[in-house]
Structures are given as C-alpha cells and as structure tokens.
C-alpha cells in the first residue's frame, strides 16, 4: 500500500513541477538557515570541559567601597584582588585551585635570524593544568614548589613549539619571554576550550586559538609582566605594585568533587568575606560561587548576534512552513475530484490521509537534503566571516541527524492540515460535478 502512495505522491509532485520546486526550495531555505545558525549557537554555548565542568567553580567577592559599587545593577566583581586570590589559594580548601591572569608577552626566538613577536600568555599556578585536564605532548606542568620558589619555568602550546622548535621535544630548552629566560617544562597538545572560560574578563578572546605561553604567576610578576586587565577600586593602585593595590585582576578556579565539598566551600567563602569585613578590608560581605556553565551563562559569553540570528532563522522557518502548508493545501484541494473518485472506489478516509502525508513527507525529505546543502553552504560562508569563532563552524553528526528530524517534522506539520482537509472531502458532490 505504501508503495502505491509513494507512486501517487511522486506522480502528483511531478505534475506541478513549479509548485513542487517552490515548496521544496522554500522549506530547504528555512531548514538551511535554521541549521546553520543552530550549529553556530551550539558551538558558542557549548560546554568547554564536558567531563569536568560540573566540578569547577568560580569564587567571587566584593572588595568595592559601598559608595563606589562595582556595578550600578549590583553585579558581583568579575575578578579578585591579589591578596584575596592568594588567601584562597593558600587555604587549600578545595581539591585543586588556581589563579589566572592573561598578558601579552614578547617572545624572543633563540635563533640568530628570528624576530621578536608577541604571544598570548597565561600567568597561573600549578593546579591549572591538572584541574583543566590540559593534555601534554612532552613533559608536564610545574609544581606548587616551583610557584613558591618563583622558578623561571614555562609551559608552551603545541603551535608555539612547532614555530620555535619545529615540533621537537623542547623540554629543558630555554625560551626568552619579556627579556627573561624561562626553562620549558612542558609542551601542550592542541588545547583550546571553547568558549575559553578561564579567559573571561581577563582581556583575552573567548573563542579561537588558545594561548601560547603559560608561566607561574609569581615568577612572571617578579619579572615585571603585567596583566592585560586590571580594575581599580580605590586610590593608590598602580601597575608596579599590583600585589598590594586596591585592584582586581585575577580569576580563581576551584575543583570541588561533590555537593558536600561545594557547600563546605561556600561556608568557608562566606566566613572569609565576613572576616574581611571585620578586619575593615571589605565593606560588603556578599560572595558568589557559580559553577562553570552557570558563570558562562550569567556573563552572556555567547554573542547577542549569534542568538539573534538563530531567532531570526526560526522566524524564517516558520514563514516557510506556513508557506508550504498554503501551497500543499492549494494542491490538494485542486485534486478534490481525484479524491472523490478514490473515495467512491472504496478508499477510506485514513487511506487518503496517509496518501497526502506521504506526499508531504517526500517534500520534507527532499527539502531536508537540500536544506543540508544550504546549511553546509551557510557554514562555509560563516567560516569566511571575520568573527573570532568563524573557523570553528562545522556540522557534526548529531546536527546532521537533527536536520532530518527538523525537516520531517516541519513537513509533516505542514502536511497535517491539507491531509485533513483532503480526507474530509465528500465524494458525492465531486463525482456529480464531474
């Protein structure tokens, strides 16, 4: 029976080539636009560390004076001061903890003809690498002892290792950063979490290629390397004495394995802030400790434009579906007589309904395939856009399948009304008219 419906549907679609093409192309455009924007949105709002993100937390507190708040809408300050960050790190109350700041650093190649260049640098502490599961190609990260000793050690990214050492094992070699020699202890495999959660508000990019150089925070500061972002909350702050300045410039990350550890840490953080109020360092005792994904959502890391595009594409798909409903309806009402004949010859209402749904499904499948082509075309277009995330735009298997689900759902919904109208056609008047 199904084969017969298929045959009928194909015949009917072939009869009105222009109308059929119109329906398929409109549906395909709607689906293509939707899938393109959804793929981008998914990429941008994805989980940067799926295996770990639920255990990573970002503590926040508020050292700003009451009459000079950080934000007029009551937002928590984005970063921590050096004193507070170090107090949290030294307390060692979490399973792992690291402070992070970003900097542009000048790298001097050791070869004779090499020109100096700037690289994106990360100043951080030992737990950074194990906490974020950063994969090493050669060597490993530095130790907490290196942090305390202000050791001149560095971890470099794979792409920088390729550039400077031709991809060879460079552990033990020296690299000259901002005029100081650092010994390379580790080389990372390609690693660039998207979005770059740990770079948020530190003056780096949220998407695209990762940072090139990682150095211990205290060693870098001893060499006079300054962070890219710094916000002052009182008089007397300066770039040359950031450690004692009333200024926030560090992000701290914590790894807390379970709910009990989280609530214990929340209490510790609240107590710490209250202590600071008692000491007169803080005027406000409020604290916050969002988990990684909560932090990214709260800070609207996904660009507004990407979300607007997705909304627009959905609106467009809706218009295309309405359009398809209208055209399918027109087509099927035109065939009232054919339906009348089939009904008179014994086809049930259900049979007519199925026949028209099959026709709609064919439009949907063809629209889906074509929509996929449009989506690939759209993503190709996005890869050639100037946005920092552009290079990452691609269609994965789940989006691939999702395309067909959307296409089929859209066309079946579009087919429901016409099919229902078709099976409601009374056979007698149609036959009489003939």
């Amino acid at each position, binding site marked *: 029976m199904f084969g017969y419906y298929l045959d009928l549907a194909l015949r009917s679609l072939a009869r009105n080539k222009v109308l059929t093409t119109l329906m398929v192309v409109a549906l395909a455009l709607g689906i293509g636009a939707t899938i393109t924007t959804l793929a981008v949105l998914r990429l941008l709002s994805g989980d940067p560390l799926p295996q770990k993100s639920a255990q990573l937390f970002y503590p926040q507190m508020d050292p700003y004076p009451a*009459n000079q708040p950080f934000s007029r809408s009551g937002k928590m300050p984005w970063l921590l001061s050096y004193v507070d960050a170090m107090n949290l790190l030294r307390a060692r109350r979490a399973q792992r903890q690291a402070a992070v700041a970003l900097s542009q650093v000048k790298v001097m190649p050791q070869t004779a003809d090499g020109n100096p260049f700037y690289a994106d640098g990360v100043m951080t502490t030992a737990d950074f690498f194990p906490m974020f599961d950063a994969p090493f190609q050669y060597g490993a990260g530095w130790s907490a002892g290196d942090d305390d000793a202000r050791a001149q050690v560095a971890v470099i990214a794979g792409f920088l290792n390729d550039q400077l050492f031709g991809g060879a094992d460079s552990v033990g070699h020296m690299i000259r950063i901002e005029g100081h020699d650092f010994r390379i202890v580790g080389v990372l495999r390609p690693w660039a979490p998207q979005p770059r959660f740990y770079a948020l508000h530190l003056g780096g990019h949220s998407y695209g290629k990762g940072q090139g150089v990682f150095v211990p925070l205290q060693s870098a500061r001893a060499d006079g390397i300054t962070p890219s972002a710094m916000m002052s909350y009182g008089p007397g702050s300066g770039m040359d004495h950031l450690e004692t300045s009333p200024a926030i410039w560090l992000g701290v990350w914590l790894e807390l394995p379970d709910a009990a550890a989280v609530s214990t840490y929340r209490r510790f953080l609240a107590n710490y802030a209250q202590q600071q109020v008692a000491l007169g360092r803080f005027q406000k005792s409020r604290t916050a400790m969002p988990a990684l994904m909560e932090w990214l959502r709260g800070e609207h890391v996904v660009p507004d434009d990407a979300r607007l595009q997705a909304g627009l594409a959905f609106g467009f798909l809706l218009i295309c579906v309405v359009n398809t409903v209208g055209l399918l309806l*027109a087509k099927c009402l035109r065939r009232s007589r054919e339906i009348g004949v089939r009904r008179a010859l014994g086809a049930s209402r259900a049979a007519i309904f199925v026949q028209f749904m099959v026709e709609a499904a064919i439009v949907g499948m063809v629209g889906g395939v074509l929509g996929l082509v449009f989506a690939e075309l759209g993503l190709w277009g996005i890869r050639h856009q100037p946005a920092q995330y552009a290079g990452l735009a691609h269609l994965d298997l789940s989006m691939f399948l999702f395309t067909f689900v959307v296409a089929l759902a859209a066309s079946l919904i579009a087919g429901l009304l016409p099919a229902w109208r078709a099976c409601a056609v009374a056979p007698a008047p149609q036959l009489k008219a003939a």
Partner: protein
Amino acid sequence: MEIRPILASLRKHRIPTVLIVLEIALTCAVLCNAVFMIGQRVSAIRLPNAIDEHSLSTVGLSGTDEKTAGSDIPRNLAALRGIPGVQAAGAVSTLPLSHNNWGWSFGTSPDVSVFNKKTVNFSLFFLGEGADKALGLRLLEGRFFNADDYADSSFGSAPLPETHVTLVTHSIAERMWPGQSALGKTYYTTSHYYTVVGVIADVLRPNIDGQGEASNYFSAFYPMSAEGSKGNLRRYVLRSAPGDRDRVMRAAEQKLIELNPNGVTKSAIYSDMRDQYFADMRSMAWMLVLVCVVMLAVTAFGIVGLTSFWVGQRRQQIGIRRAVGASRGHIMQYFQTENFLLSGAGVVLGVAMAYGINLYLMQHYEITRMPWYYLPVSAVALWGLGQLAVLGPALRAANVPPVVATRSA
C-alpha cells in the same frame, strides 16, 4: 469596487485566507525587526569621527625599553618625519576603534566618591608632542596643549597621568556641563583633577557599544612627555596624502625596526582599522539583508501560488462574470482588491507582532526601541509586494475568455 462579494468568497475559503494573512503577518513582523537591526548597524558603521581618517596610517611599536623612551621617541619621530610624503607624525597611546581602551570615571565635584552616581566613564588618550596635528583633531574652543603642558606631564605609580590639563570632546562638555562653556572647568577623581583647556570635535572611543549614543564620544586627551610615558606612547601616527599611505606606512615600519631591533611592530592604514572594527557588524548586516530578501521572495511566491490556485478554481465564475459584461479590468481589480484586503489584515497583525517582538528583544538583548516609522514603511513595502505578486495571476484571470462560462467545468 464592491468589497462585499470578495469578503463573501474569502469566507468560503477560510483556511487559505488565514494562511495567507498569517504568512504576511509573520513576514511583516520579522521584516520590521530585521530592517531595524540593519539600520542600527549601518548607522554605527557610519558614525562620524573627528580625526583625519583618510590620511592616517599607524605603526605600533612595543617591546622596547621604557627607560630610554625619553630619547627613543623623539629620535623615532625625527626619522619618521624624514620619510618623503609624511606631513606630520606623532606618538599616541591608543586610537579610536582600536579596541585598546583605558577607561576611568570622573565627576564634576572634588567629592566624587560620595556622588559616585554622577561620575562618567571616559576613555583616556595620551598624546605625545605633535600628535594633535598628526591626528587632525579639530579644536572648537580654547587651545591645544603647549610645550610646557607636554614637558610637565608623566606617569607616576598611579594609573592616571600626572598633569592638570586636558582636552575633552564636545559630547563630554555637553554631558558634564550642559549649557555652559567647558573651558576652565575641572573634573575630578579621588586622587587626581584635570582642567579643560580646549574642547574638540567628537572623536570615537577605542571601543563603542554600537547604540549610537553620545557616550561613544566620551574621549578625553592628555599631554604626555616622552620620558615620563612609561611605555604608554606605543603607537606612531603618520599623516600623508591618501595615495601615499601604504608606501609611507611600509617605510615607517622598516625605519622603526631598524632603529629598535628589540621592538615588535604592527602597522595598519587607519581606514582599514576602522573597517576591521566594524567587520562583524557589517557581515551581520549583510546576513540580515540576505534573509530579508529570501523571506520576501518566499512570501511573494507563496502569494503567487495560492492566488494562481484560486484563479484556476474560479475559471468558470470568471467566465460567467465576463459573459455578463465584466471587463478585463474588472476581473483584474477583483483579484487586486482581494489581495489588498488580505495584505491589509496581514500587515495590521504583523505590525502588532513586530512591536511585540521588539519589546521582547529590548528586555533580553541590548536593543533600543524601534522608531515608529519602521512600522508603516514595512507595511507599505509588504502591501506593494502583495500587489506585485498578484499581478501575474490576476492577468491570467483577466485573460479567461467569456466562452468558458458555456462549458461545463
């Protein structure tokens, strides 16, 4: 034209009528908002900027020793001024639309911490001697910095310049001292104060929010001596004839590398830098244009499809009307009026939806209220589109010969 028969016939085809009205309404709603977003972006891309944008090229130089800046910067500038075609050269800390922002909040009273709600965030620009002329800043009131101003200014340990003179843009003057002359007025932060010696035409900040507000022009300028600059005068600005920019920029970069072997340079023609800043916005605007065009095409073809179907269905009725005396014009008018009514209903619904969507977007995104005139303009556009789309089917209907009436369907 009699409307009642049209309404009667539409009532008999309720579902197709509702569908076509719905499609037009949705298109109208999306169109209004998309066109509004395009308009916002276009106006941001075209924001005026009172520097000599088309004559400037720039070379950034970083990684040099801050301690010798006092002799390095004058030496570099002298070399740059020696390049044929260079009309003026100067060193600055940042440029409009360069993303390199140094912001600070100031108030009009010495007691700023108490009146913090009244403080205004400025972007700070530091100018080395001669940079005002190189940039082509336009003075509206007062004076530019003099040699003493430059010599007296430096950086101490604070993240603010140790000087007491400043140039502000017209927009800052209006915001801080509305209705008064800003000349001689002072603005304060907890530790520093600055007195306005000149007001200049509006210069954009290093970062703007794209909303076309006055705050995009809150740029304040301070003099800075080469020796006291602590590595903050890193960008050399060159002014030349527009045709010379590329050559001058290359020559300047070459010269700076020769003079500063440890330095890292990065050069750009200013108008390219501006284009780069707006590249994302421009591509978004083009994407919106593309979606609008495709959407209008889909809607137009939808109208053509449905009307053609109606014409086909009513061939006999049309024949009868023609046979009893209706002219071709009458038949055309019938379908045009019908479409006019359908578009009208769709547009009314669509305008209401467009307004609703705008309200929603205002709550959830950084989008301002849509000016009212977008609504009638979109409405008229869709009305026009409907009439255009119906023209083909209506002509076909008008060509139905009266003899059809005598044949059985």
